[in-house]
């Protein structure tokens, strides 16, 4: 099965190609082909997983070379695949959650005239992400890395008839390119210092490299990760990316795209383990972003944007975990897997809410929806408990371990990183409960048409209803995952042993956190409970105003993403625009000016000389005679 693993990528890629090339002719059956392709990929992944599970732990890393991609003298890049526990974990997450999202989209996009194109892009996304995680070299990884960038651009701007969606897609694309620059330079450093960009060669060469080179590589890889995973300071695109259809948000946030940053850090564990300075920066960025995203999620009234802030925050946990080094790698991936389930569930739930509420995402216009949307309510509740880390839901097992690991170390580090992770858990509970209570509890802030109290009533007219089965079944499956997956994977440290061949055994069990374990866990759960209570007092018990209140300075700043857009505009966009305008001016005035001037001169010279070509024999004869006379005079003068 290992040799056939290229099918994983080939099937969805082929399906995307068929759908895009056939165009409208495949409208009728296109979505079903896309779902079949994604399912087939999942089945191949499952068979590969069983094959690898049947082997001894130390034999579980397979490098499959497909063909020589870039043979360039001494430097050559082979395109190949690495089948190992880490890549297979991702394969299972991507294909399983991806397939569920495909199925859900069948209902969500039912009335969209262009749904065949949508499914083609979804397949492309899955294929690109699988390329990313299965590649056995940074060059192959980069191929998939750019592929998910392209697919996300196409999907965020799927409804590009609205300018703001197209702008959001462009923003995501451009900000990702900034990060990609880091990855490209990192690959350049590898080519220069190691002479190869394959994982095996780079890992083998790490002990021989100087600390400076390793730190630079680590920081540049981090820059790439920061762009893809929407971490500080390249986080501003994620909120705007909500412009795409909701299943896309689920796919980007849960199974693909933003998880790529965590993947690349864990995949480059050899580099980061040897460069503690770079690793510390990773951990600090993760801790900072987890708080930043959590604050943003607290302030947003748009349910999707609040979830986007939450993703930023949860990915922050993973980056923090990965930045902690060998004690955290496995738990970063663990949290990534459980997060994939509950965040996909939350987004699909949000999509179901939008479906029922005329595409409104404003939570202030929801309220009391549990009575009319039973299944959505229950699945959302499971994911809500999971993301807060309430035992025994899956988020508890993964997040708690990261908080524990953050408290290991010496000096200021455990207190700052652990403190941030701890506070983040409390804020997570607050914003998720706020969302949950505002949406499903309290008084209804919408009316059926009959109950409308005259034209002055500000409440919108709605007829909320439960979504069709094709949408609710994927939500139920994800909710089951959100409930039980953590327990299953944490059973007897299964996920740590599974990932051990790639990232090494976690040292957490032998490490001594600066606070006793029971204290960390109790504090976390107390903060979570406190967050829920606070949210209940504010949004469950008391009526929620239809228009957002003015709010404190912090709230207003968080509503505007802490002015990230303004900062980006002032620091990079405007100077960039000025620079390009100057260059354009220089181009038109100086370069084009001289070239065009030369051309214009030639043309006018030709125009005046054209008059000589008048077709009169006698004037030609006169010219010849004049020429002879001039030549004679010149010869005469030269002779003298």
């Amino acid at each position: 099965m290992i040799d056939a693993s290229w099918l994983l990528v080939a099937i969805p890629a082929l399906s995307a190609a068929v759908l895009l090339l056939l165009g409208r002719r495949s409208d009728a059956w296109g979505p079903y082909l896309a779902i079949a392709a994604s399912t087939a990929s999942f089945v191949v992944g499952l068979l590969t997983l069983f094959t690898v599970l049947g082997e001894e732990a130390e034999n579980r890393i397979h490098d499959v070379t497909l063909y020589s991609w870039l043979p360039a003298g001494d430097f050559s890049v082979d395109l190949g695949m690495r089948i190992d526990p880490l890549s297979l974990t991702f394969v299972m997450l991507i294909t399983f959650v991806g397939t569920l999202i495909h199925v859900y989209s069948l209902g969500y996009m039912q009335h969209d005239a262009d749904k065949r194109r949508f499914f083609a892009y979804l397949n492309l996304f899955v294929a690109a992400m699988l390329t990313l995680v299965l590649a056995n070299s940074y060059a192959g990884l980069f191929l998939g890395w750019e592929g998910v960038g392209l697919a996300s651009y196409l999907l965020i701007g799927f409804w590009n008839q609205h300018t703001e969606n197209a702008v959001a897609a462009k923003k995501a694309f451009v900000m990702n390119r900034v990060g990609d620059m880091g990855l490209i330079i990192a690959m350049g450093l590898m080519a220069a210092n190691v002479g190869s960009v394959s994982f095996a060669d780079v890992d083998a060469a790490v002990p021989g490299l100087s600390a400076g080179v390793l730190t630079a590589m680590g920081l540049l890889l981090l820059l790439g990760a920061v762009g893809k995973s929407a971490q500080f300071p390249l986080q501003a695109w994620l909120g705007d990316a909500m412009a795409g259809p909701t299943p896309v948000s689920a796919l980007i946030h849960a199974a693909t795209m933003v998880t790529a940053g965590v993947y690349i850090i864990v995949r480059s564990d050899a580099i980061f383990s040897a460069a503690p300075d770079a690793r510390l920066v990773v951990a600090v960025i993760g801790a900072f972003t987890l708080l930043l995203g959590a604050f943003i999620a607290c302030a947003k009234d748009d349910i999707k944007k609040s979830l986007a802030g939450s993703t930023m925050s949860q990915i922050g946990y993973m980056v923090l975990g990965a930045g902690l080094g060998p004690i955290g790698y496995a738990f970063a991936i663990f949290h990534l897997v459980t997060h994939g389930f509950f965040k996909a569930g939350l987004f699909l739930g949000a999509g179901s809410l939008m479906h029922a509420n005329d595409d409104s995402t404003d939570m202030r216009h929801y309220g009391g929806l549990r009575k009319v949307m039973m299944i959505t309510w229950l699945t959302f509740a499971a994911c809500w408990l999971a993301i807060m880390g309430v035992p025994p839901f899956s988020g508890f097992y993964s997040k708690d371990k990261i908080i524990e690991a953050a408290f290991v170390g010496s000096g200021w580090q455990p207190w700052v990183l652990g403190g941030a992770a701890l506070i983040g858990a409390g804020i997570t509970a607050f914003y998720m409960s706020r969302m949950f209570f505002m949406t499903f509890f309290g008084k209804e802030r919408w009316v059926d048409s009959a109950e409308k109290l005259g034209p002055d009533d500000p409440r919108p007219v709605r007829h909320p209803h439960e979504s069709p089965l094709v949408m609710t079944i994927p939500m139920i499956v994800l909710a089951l995952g959100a409930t039980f997956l953590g327990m299953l994977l944490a059973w007897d440290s299964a996920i740590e042993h599974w990932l051990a061949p790639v990232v090494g055994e976690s040292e957490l069990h032998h490490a001594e956190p600066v606070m006793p374990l029971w204290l960390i866990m109790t504090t976390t759960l107390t903060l979570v409970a406190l967050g829920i209570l606070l949210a209940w007092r504010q949004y469950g018990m008391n009526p929620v105003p239809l228009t957002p209140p003015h709010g404190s300075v912090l709230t207003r700043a968080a509503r505007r993403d802490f002015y990230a857009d303004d900062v980006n505009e002032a620091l990079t966009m405007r100077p960039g625009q000025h620079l390009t305008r100057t260059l354009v001016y220089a181009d038109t005035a100086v370069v084009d000016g001289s070239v065009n001037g030369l051309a214009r001169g030639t043309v006018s010279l030709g125009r005046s000389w054209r008059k000589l070509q008048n077709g009169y024999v006698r004037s030609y004869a006169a010219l010849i005679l004049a020429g002879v006379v001039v030549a004679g005079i010149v010869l005469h003068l030269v002779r003298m």
Partner: protein
Amino acid sequence: MSLVHYLVLASILFAVGAVTVLTRRNAILAFMGVELMLNSCNLALVTFSRVHGGLEGQVMAFYVMVVAAAEVVVGLAIIVSLYRSRRTVSVDEPSLLKN
């Protein structure tokens, strides 16, 4: 009669021929101007031949005569066909190949 006199006569004949070619519209007259210029060349060649006591000038004069004869044959044929097709022998009117 010194050399200079012959050469001056040849120059005058050449100038008259050149002016004729440049100023007359009638193709036949322009043609005669060309003949005049050729003859002035022949005169100069023969004169030099006499003065230097060699035969090269005489031989060259014969060449010129042969060329002139050939030119008359082709030129007159062109003029005749021109007249047939356009009912004119003016050199200015058939300027179709300009531009």
